[in-house]
């Protein structure tokens, strides 16, 4: 994926540079960009290390486990399978709590475990797996440490003053994702019910007709 994005951006720059007559500036822009990346990472490293340290303390003193316990009820509501499958419940809760604490490195393995536990083994995603993916593909992070560090390194007066906005935005984004997933799941089920031919083997058709007639 990144291969294409990278080459695409570079190609557009060169083509556009020629059109706009700014091609001469591209070379120095490239080298400056590379230099900026190093400065940027150096600027980010302090805050990044600080927050990873803080979050390690939180995990160690049981905050992640406590969060995971709190999450059991809402997770059970959103993903049916976690109610009967303890392994799935554990993995999903660990995944979400690690995400909330910004422990991306820990969250992904839990998420993968959760995805395997929730899956039915077929090549079609079930509702639970879709819900897990939708929740994970929207942000869950409580402290956007990288972004705050980025602001700080570029001279922001109060790099963390975006926190309330980030929380509200994240909340609305998650709610939208979950609502969209529930809604689309319902719509798909209804369209399936409306067309009995959907994904059904021909041999089973008479049986299905009887059912829908009832």
């Amino acid at each position: 994926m990144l291969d294409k994005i990278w080459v695409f951006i570079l190609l557009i720059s060169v083509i556009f540079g020629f059109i706009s007559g700014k091609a001469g500036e591209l070379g120095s822009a490239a080298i400056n960009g590379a230099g900026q990346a190093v400065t940027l990472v150096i600027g980010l490293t302090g805050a990044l290390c600080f927050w990873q340290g803080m979050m390690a303390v939180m995990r160690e003193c049981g905050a992640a486990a406590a969060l995971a316990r709190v999450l059991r009820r809402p997770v059970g509501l959103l993903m049916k399978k976690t109610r009967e499958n303890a392994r799935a419940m554990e993995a999903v809760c660990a995944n979400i709590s690690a995400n909330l604490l910004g422990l991306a490195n820990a969250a992904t393995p839990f998420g993968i475990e959760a995805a395997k536990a929730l899956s039915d083994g077929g090549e079609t995603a079930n509702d639970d797996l879709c819900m897990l993916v939708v929740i994970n593909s929207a942000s869950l992070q409580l402290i956007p440490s990288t972004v705050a560090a980025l602001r700080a390194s570029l001279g922001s007066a109060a790099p963390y003053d975006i926190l309330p906005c980030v929380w509200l935005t994240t909340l609305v984004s998650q709610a939208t994702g979950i609502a969209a997933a529930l809604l689309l799941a319902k719509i798909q089920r209804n369209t399936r019910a409306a067309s009995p031919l959907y994904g059904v083997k021909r041999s089973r058709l008479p049986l299905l007709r009887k059912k829908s007639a009832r």
Partner: protein
Amino acid sequence: MSDLILPLLICGIVTVGLFRKTPVFSVFIRGAREGLDTALGILPSLLALLTAVSMLRASGAIECLAHLLGPVLAKVGIPAETLLLILIKPFSGSGALAAGADILREFGPDSFIGRVAAIMLGSSETTFYTIAVYFGAAGVTKTRYAVPAALAADAAAFLMAALTVRLLG
């Protein structure tokens, strides 16, 4: 109020840690060490992408794109300057960070545009990467409604980023 969130959070975490008999200092050091790995880990891809974004800005393409699509974004309150960030974010986290750094440098981290860009970065995820990793792990190829639902969440995040800056500052 928001001045106090951070200091209180920091004090709270270490105090609770100490009360629960966690060796807070050594655990913190271990975590901070991991942060060093994270920082080093993002450098190569950030370097590649920031080079590309820097060239894109120098070529004038970003401005032109913002000029073209700006009116559409302006209708929903999103500053056109954040367009590249919005386009890259679902595909690449370090790409979005590069685009965000470019915006913050260009307009300043405390400007309206800079704040919106920062909130966008902080409240969205690399959607397609997540989808690929989790569905790949489960061996799923038919993703049904997951992609549209995930993109709806992204769209909500981008809209809310601009809206919250307007409302809360």
